[in-house]
Every structure is written in structure tokens, then in C-alpha cells.
């Protein structure tokens, strides 16, 4: 019966033990670090005893790498499943494959011989819905029926997505990156990285992306990868019992998430370093790289795109760029910065409205309304009807002689016989001008609709929509420059570098630079952005234009507001995130921030051997402080240590249940030896083991600059203030955050959590 016993143990409610944290609280980094050092020392000392202990110590040392391997395998598999399912479901809105219903449009026509040069996607096996239902493929009736069914499918997908999120895992909505940033800085959100959140986020991400909404899957993939990381942490007690070590694993898992989202392992590691992680020691760098590599390898072996590439936007041209082209690149950078500022301000205003007014009470209705508007407006324009990834892929591609899309409708010289890569600049045909109008409309549409889409109660990312906005703007600028260079090649600016008959301007490159600029303007990434872009496209020659655009967009955007989209969302939600990049330059002292203030009740303390159990319980019940300092006595107020509220509660509850003789009037003592009491007193209770004997203290004249630095670098939760050895007050992380907000003239009451 041992098997069923173990199974039933899993179903039991877990007993919380001393040393764990409550939900929505901050961890104590120093304590976690010292616990890990203790554990490591114990294992090392025991490993000398026997061979079995030695093997166990080796397994413990290797468990980190095993966890990374498992994270990479599972993230890669899930990303492959998501890519294949999105591919299929996006095409389901328009038609179905008759020979095998599980094939998307491209896969259905893969072996068919009826595809023509002009219409590469047509084949008899794949039929649109109107053709299937009525038998007519063309005509106004077919168009209206296709339109209607497209909108219907989009509404169905988004309704399913929001219902599943609401019923099973409410934490699966949104992008996930702001919350993961906060978790990695030491905050606890129980259930945010749980198994149901993982399952629901994967399933609903496919539905949300397939419904045609203006959102991407990169941010949610980071959340999915971190859920995988959390899942595998629970297999090893080294990580499951230590919150600090767990966050190292989560940093590496975030790198694996970006790696499979973009096919950029190095970019993923740098993204984890720059954007997501709080502490990033060198050991984590190496492990993140391993996890990202395993994930990329797994995704490649699943091969979702059928041509051994990891991402849809792989471009193959190597045409050089010219120094004079830096001017339009910098202009694209300025556009990216301006768009980033506009998007952040508008999106935060809309999210704030959703948080505070009636709009927030109808999440399902909101999702359906936004999907309906998106689908209705997106269908007529062929550039918004298809999925955003396909649009970006088409915009990044250069027009050779082999393309037949409207965007590549250039007037070809029939006698031309150059190889396919080196086509000289050509005048634009009518199709290109048509495409330019449609692209301009698509740009305005995407700029407006993304503001309302990001932040809804379904998984939504914003990398792909930002890249789409930038790519459209870049392509328009590129075509404009190309046509100017062709028609006016005798102007001074073009004369030096652009000879007639040469291939001067590549509009696809402008699209790439525009995409990088817009993404940088919104997220304020720098190095990781450039690395991701050049890993996406394989164009090492284009690093300088990408860097120029990224730097320009960051400068322009920083001129209007220092925070990127993720930091703005953290601020909107009031998470206790002490940003590493903020500088505190005011001249306040520790006395100005510490509690209790002049009019507050005095500090709630415990004495080392004169408090009774009843007093402690009353103190816990009447106040909601997270911990209490322990002093020698109320007269001398010399500091002994600090004890956490949760540890006190659990210890007293345990003592009442398990130890004999402990009653309400028992004395609680924190010293080594029991105090001298008359024999008639009930048995005293020793609680020294839950006392932290080395709490961090500063004197009252310490400048706040130093205090903020200490909180940031050591990850403290609270810090005690003393003067000539006597305890004066306490500064918590919440007080520090409120003080900083006050100094920056923001609302200090918006900091909600401890």
C-alpha cells in the first residue's frame, strides 16, 4: 500500500514550515544566501563519509545543469507546439484543407502541382469557406461570406481564450514580463508560475494570436518558460526550498524563453541580463546560455517552419549600405522613439482607466469588442488580414526578380540578365504605389489598435506589433528613398554613392531598421535588441545601422520619460520594485524616512526575556508589521536581533500543540539560557532559533543615498536605525519606495505591497 500512500501524500495540504514566505511579500536575500551556504557546507562535509554521500554531493552539484537541460527541452517543445498550432489556426479563419484538415494553407499546397507563378498559394485542396459552402470562389457574395466567417472565427477564438483564462487561471493574462521582473527582484506571487498557469497560458496564447488581434507571443513565451523553470525547480530540494536559488533558475529560464521566441540564443541571454533579471552573477550567465542553447536545439529538431530555420523572418541578402543612408536610419530612430513614448503614455492611460472605472468590470465583453473591431477593420486590407509575422516577413524581404507580390511590382527591364541577388534599382510600378497606400492605412490602424490590445485579459505580447509598426514605416521610407535615388540620381546627395544601374537602396533593410527602432523605443532595450535583430536576420553587415537606430530611439524616448513599458506597468500596479537604474540624489537622512515618525505610536518591540506568550499573541493580533526587533529591555533598548512575524506565529502555534506546559503566561526568551524564574511559573519557551542575530543596522545620520544603495545591492527587506547603540526605528522597503516616489513627485500611496 506504499504506492497509494505516496500518491495520497501529494494530495494533502502542505504544512507551511518556518522559513517560508507569505504571498505578496518580499524575500530576504541574505537569509536565503546563508541557508544555501549552510546546505552546501553540510553536504560537502558529509561527502567525506562514504561513497554514497560522495555520489549525492556530485548529484547536488550537477542538479543545476540537469534543471537547465529539462527547461530547455520543455520550452523548446512548447514553443514548437505553439508555432505549429498558430500556423494552422490562423489559416483556419479563411479556409480549410480538404485532404487533411490539420494542414495550414502552405502545408496543404506543399505537394500540389497546380500552383502558378502569380498565385503561389492557390491549390484545389485548400478552399476558402465561401467556396466550400456555396461553391463560388469569386464575386461579391463570396467576399461578404468570407468576411463574415473571418470575423466569426476571430470572435470565437478570443471568446474561448478569455473564458479559459477566467475560469482556470486568471494569472495567465497579460504579457507576464512586468510580473516576472518583480518576482526576480524578490517578490512572491504564489500561483503565478504554477502548472495550471502554464497549461492555460500555452493553450490560450495560440487562441489569442490566431484570432488576428494585434499582439505577439514573445512576452508570454518568457512567462511559459519561467513556469517550466518553476516546475522543474520543485523536483530538487536545492531549488524548491530556497527562493534565492530558484530565482537564478528563473533568470536562465527567461533566457530560454526569448531564445525560442526569436531563434536568438545569445540575444535571449542578453535580454535576461538587461531586461528581466535583478541579480545576474556569472554562474547564471553560463547556465542561461546552456538553457537557451538546448531550447533552440529542441525547437530546431521539431522544425515547425519546414525549412530548418527557427524564425519566420530569416533574410538572405547581403547588399551593402552606404554612409549617406544613415540619415534616413536616424530619422527612423527618431520615429521609433516618438512612437514608443506615444504608445507608453496612451497604453498606461488606458490601463489606468481599466483599473479604476467601470470598464474593468466587463473583461470578456472588452476582449470580444476589441476583437470584433480588429477583425472588421483588418479584413479589407490585405496587409492586415494576414498574420503579423507574415507581414513582417514580407516587409523584410528584398524584391528580387522572383517575387510576384504587389509590393514588388517594379518595372522590370526585359533584357536584364543579372543573377538574382544584384538587381539594380528599378522604377516602381502601379502595384507598389497601391501597396504604399495600403501600408500607410495599416500603419495607422496598427498604431491605434495596439494601444487598446496590450493589457487585456488574454495573453498578449508586444514585440511583434511594435516590430510591425516599425517595419511598415521603414519600408515606406525605404521605397521613398529608392525611388528618389532612381529618379533623381543627379542630385548631390545621391551622386557620390548611387550610380544609375547599380543596386543602391534595399527597402528591406529600412524595414529591419524601423522594426528595431520601434521595439527599442517601447522597451528601451539596447544591446540585447541589436543582438536579437542580427540573430533574427543573419545580417552581420547591418549592425551599424541597427545600432544607430536603436541608440537614437532610446535617446529620443528617454527625453520624454525614463521608463520603458515594463517599468511603467510595474509602477501602475504598485509592485515593490526597486529599480537598479534609478539614481537617488537627494540629501535626506535615515531619520527622515524611518518609522515611527514623531506622532506615531512607539516602535513595537519584544524584549529578550520578559515578554509572555500572551503579550506576543496580542502584539501579532493588533499590528500587521512583518517583524519585530528584539531588545535587551524596555529601559535600555539595546538591540539583540530581529524576528519575523510569520516565524513567530508558526513557532508559537507549534509550541502550543507539541510542547507540554506552555500556556499563555509562559515567558518567551531569546537568550541562550533560560531566565531565572520562581519554580511556580509555567515553563518558559525558548525561541532563539527563529531570531536573526545579525539584522542590518544604520545610524540615524546615514544619508538616504547610502541606505537606498544598501537595499538595492543586498536585497534587504527592512533595516533598523540606531543611535549610540540604542534602537530608534525601522526602515522597510515600502518606506524607501514611498520616499523615492515622494522625491520624484509621484503619488507615494500608489506603492501597495510590502
Amino acid at each position, binding site marked *: 500500500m506504499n504506492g497509494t500512500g505516496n*500518491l*495520497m501524500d501529494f*494530495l494533502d*495540504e502542505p504544512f507551511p514550515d518556518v522559513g517560508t514566505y507569505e504571498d505578496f511579500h518580499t524575500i530576504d536575500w541574505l537569509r536565503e544566501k546563508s541557508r544555501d551556504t549552510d546546505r552546501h557546507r553540510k553536504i560537502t562535509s558529509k561527502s567525506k563519509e562514504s561513497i554514497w554521500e560522495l555520489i549525492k554531493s556530485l548529484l547536488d552539484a550537477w542538479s543545476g545543469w540537469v534543471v537547465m537541460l529539462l527547461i530547455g*527541452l*520543455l520550452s523548446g*517543445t512548447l514553443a*514548437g*507546439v505553439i508555432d*505549429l*498550432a498558430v500556423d494552422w489556426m490562423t489559416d483556419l479563419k479563411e479556409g480549410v484543407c480538404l485532404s487533411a484538415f*490539420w*494542414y495550414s494553407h502552405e*502545408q496543404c499546397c506543399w*505537394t*500540389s502541382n497546380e*500552383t*502558378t*507563378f*502569380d498565385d*503561389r498559394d492557390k491549390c484545389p485542396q485548400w478552399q476558402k469557406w465561401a467556396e466550400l459552402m456555396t461553391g463560388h470562389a469569386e464575386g461579391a457574395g463570396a467576399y461578404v461570406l468570407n468576411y463574415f466567417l473571418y470575423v466569426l472565427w476571430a470572435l470565437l477564438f478570443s471568446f*474561448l481564450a478569455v*473564458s*479559459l483564462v*477566467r*475560469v*482556470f*487561471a*486568471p*494569472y495567465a*493574462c*497579460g504579457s507576464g514580463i512586468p*510580473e516576472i521582473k518583480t518576482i526576480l527582484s524578490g517578490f512572491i*506571487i504564489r500561483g503565478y508560475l504554477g*502548472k*495550471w498557469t502554464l*497549461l*492555460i497560458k500555452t*493553450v490560450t496564447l495560440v487562441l489569442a494570436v490566431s484570432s488576428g488581434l494585434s499582439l505577439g507571443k514573445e512576452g508570454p513565451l518568457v512567462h511559459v518558460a519561467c513556469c517550466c523553470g518553476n*516546475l522543474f525547480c520543485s523536483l530538487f530540494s536545492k531549488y524548491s526550498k530556497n527562493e534565492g536559488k530558484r530565482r537564478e533558475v528563473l533568470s536562465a529560464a527567461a533566457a530560454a524563453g526569448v531564445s525560442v521566441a526569436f531563434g536568438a540564443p545569445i540575444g535571449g541571454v542578453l535580454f535576461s541580463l538587461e531586461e528581466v533579471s535583478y541579480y545576474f552573477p556569472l554562474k547564471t550567465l553560463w547556465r542561461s546560455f546552456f538553457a537557451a542553447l538546448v531550447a533552440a536545439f*529542441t525547437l530546431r*529538431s*521539431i*522544425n515547425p517552419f*519546414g*525549412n*530548418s530555420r527557427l524564425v519566420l523572418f530569416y533574410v538572405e541578402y547581403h547588399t551593402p549600405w552606404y554612409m549617406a543612408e544613415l540619415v534616413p536610419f536616424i530619422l527612423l530612430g527618431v520615429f521609433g522613439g516618438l512612437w514608443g513614448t506615444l504608445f507608453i503614455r496612451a497604453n498606461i492611460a488606458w*490601463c489606468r482607466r*481599466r*483599473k479604476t472605472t467601470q470598464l*474593468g468590470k466587463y473583461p470578456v465583453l472588452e476582449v470580444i469588442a476589441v476583437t470584433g473591431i480588429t477583425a472588421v477593420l483588418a479584413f479589407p486590407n490585405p496587409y492586415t488580414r494576414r498574420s503579423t509575422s507574415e507581414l513582417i516577413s514580407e516587409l523584410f524581404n528584398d524584391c528580387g*526578380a*522572383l517575387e510576384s507580390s504587389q509590393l514588388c511590382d517594379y518595372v522590370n527591364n*526585359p533584357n536584364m*540578365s543579372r*543573377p*538574382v541577388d544584384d538587381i539594380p534599382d528599378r522604377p516602381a510600378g502601379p502595384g507598389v504605389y497601391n501597396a504604399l497606400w495600403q501600408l500607410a492605412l495599416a500603419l495607422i490602424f496598427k498604431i491605434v489598435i495596439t494601444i487598446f490590445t496590450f493589457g487585456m*485579459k488574454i495573453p498578449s505580447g508586444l514585440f511583434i506589433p511594435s516590430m510591425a509598426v516599425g517595419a511598415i514605416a521603414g519600408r515606406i521610407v525605404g521605397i521613398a528613398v529608392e525611388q528618389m535615388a532612381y529618379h533623381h540620381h543627379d542630385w548631390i546627395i545621391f551622386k557620390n554613392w548611387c550610380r544609375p544601374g547599380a543596386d543602391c537602396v534595399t527597402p528591406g533593410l529600412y524595414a529591419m531598421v524601423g522594426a528595431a527602432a520601434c521595439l527599442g523605443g517601447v522597451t528601451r532595450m539596447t544591446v540585447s535588441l541589436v543582438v536579437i535583430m542580427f540573430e533574427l536576420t543573419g545580417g552581420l553587415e547591418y549592425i551599424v545601422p541597427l545600432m544607430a537606430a536603436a541608440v537614437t530611439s532610446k535617446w529620443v524616448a528617454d527625453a520624454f520619460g525614463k521608463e520603458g513599458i515594463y517599468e511603467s*506597468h510595474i509602477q501602475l*500596479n504598485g509592485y515593490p520594485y526597486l529599480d537598479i537604474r534609478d539614481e537617488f540624489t537627494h540629501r535626506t537622512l535615515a531619520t527622515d524616512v524611518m518609522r515611527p515618525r514623531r506622532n506615531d505610536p512607539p516602535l513595537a518591540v519584544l524584549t529578550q526575556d520578559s515578554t509572555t506568550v500572551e503579550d506576543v499573541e496580542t502584539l501579532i493580533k493588533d499590528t500587521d508589521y512583518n517583524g519585530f526587533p528584539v531588545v535587551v529591555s524596555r529601559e535600555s533598548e539595546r538591540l539583540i536581533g530581529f524576528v519575523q512575524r510569520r516565524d513567530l506565529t508558526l513557532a508559537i502555534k507549534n509550541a502550543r500543540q507539541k510542547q507540554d506546559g506552555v500556556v499563555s503566561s509562559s515567558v518567551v526568551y531569546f537568550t541562550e539560557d533560560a531566565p531565572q524564574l520562581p519554580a511556580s511559573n509555567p515553563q518558559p519557551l525558548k525561541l532563539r532559533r527563529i531570531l536573526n542575530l545579525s539584522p542590518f543596522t544604520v545610524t540615524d545620520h546615514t544619508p538616504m543615498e547610502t541606505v537606498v544603495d544598501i537595499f538595492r545591492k543586498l536585497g534587504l527587506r527592512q533595516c533598523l536605525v540606531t543611535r549610540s547603540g540604542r534602537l530608534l526605528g525601522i526602515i522597510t522597503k515600502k518606506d524607501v519606495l514611498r520616499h523615492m516616489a515622494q522625491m520624484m513627485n509621484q503619488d507615494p500611496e500608489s506603492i501597495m505591497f510590502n
Partner: protein
Amino acid sequence: MKTMFVIEAFSLACFVLLSQVTAKNSEDIRCKCICPPYRDIAGQIYKQNVSLKDCNCLHVVEPMPVDGKDVEAYCLRCECKYEERSSGTIKFTIIMYLSILGLLLLYMVYLTLLEPMLKRRLFGHSQLIQSDDDVGDQQPFANAHNVLSRSHSRPNMLNKVEHAQQRWRRQVQEQRKSVFDRHVVLS
């Protein structure tokens, strides 16, 4: 429960990788040649299921639309690409995804519509007393507290599963309150 989930995840990963390797039928490789318009011949796309070493213009473009001396000029403008896919993986993935989605939808319908109806019929109207902080709460799992308190003191498997399920429902309800109602997290 945890190890079962991990084993499941592992076997899924292995299955996908294995199916990729084993399902290599001849239909899954192709060579696609795109030839642009040449003189008075329209553009054409040619596809054939050949291997990588045969993937060039001379093997794939059949029937050749131009005569002997123009073949080289024509082929120079054509671009041939070798592509591979795994139809087994695609089929397996889509069918598995649809079945998981279907199961989740069925479970959702059961939780939101059928279970309150069944409970009402089994225990009668008087038993469904809402607790204080759930007054007017029509969400799923609203009577989680109630059912939990009616434990039948049978410490067997079924009871344990039901307890675990009730605990999970309470957690989800807490999450739903903080995300959807109070807008505290994830605005």
C-alpha cells in the same frame, strides 16, 4: 501528481522528437524551383520530391520550356530550394492540441453549468448557502467552502482528490478576485 506531470511532459517531448525522426515518408521532402518570366515564357513553379543532391534546375524543371542553347540562360535565372517537413509531427501536434483544448472546454462547461445543477439536484436547495464574502458571487467554485465543510469522514482516495480539487478551486477564486475584481495584480 507532480511526478506524473513531469513524466507526461517528458514523454511528450520524446514522442515529438521520435515522430520527427521516424515519419520520413517520401512526400515530406521536395525541391522547389521558381523560374521568372523569360522572353515570352510565363513564370513557373516546379516541384519534385527529390533529394538534396538532385535539387537543381536540370533535374527538377520538367518539361524544359526552352531549347538547348537557352537552357543555361533560363536555368541561371531560376532559384531552386530544398525543403523538408515532418507531416507526422504536424498531424500529431494539431490533433493533440485540439484534444487538450476540447478537454479543457468540456471541463469548463462542466464546472460552470453542469456542476451547480447537479449539486442542487443532489443536495437540495437549502444546502447551497453562500458564505459571507461570496454573497451574490456567481463565479465558478463559489460553493467551494460549502462542499469542503461537508466532508464525509471517509479518508479514502476519492475524498482526498475532492479535497485537493476544492483547495485548487479556492486558490483560483482568490486569483480571480485579485485580477478581475480588485485589479490589484495584472491591471
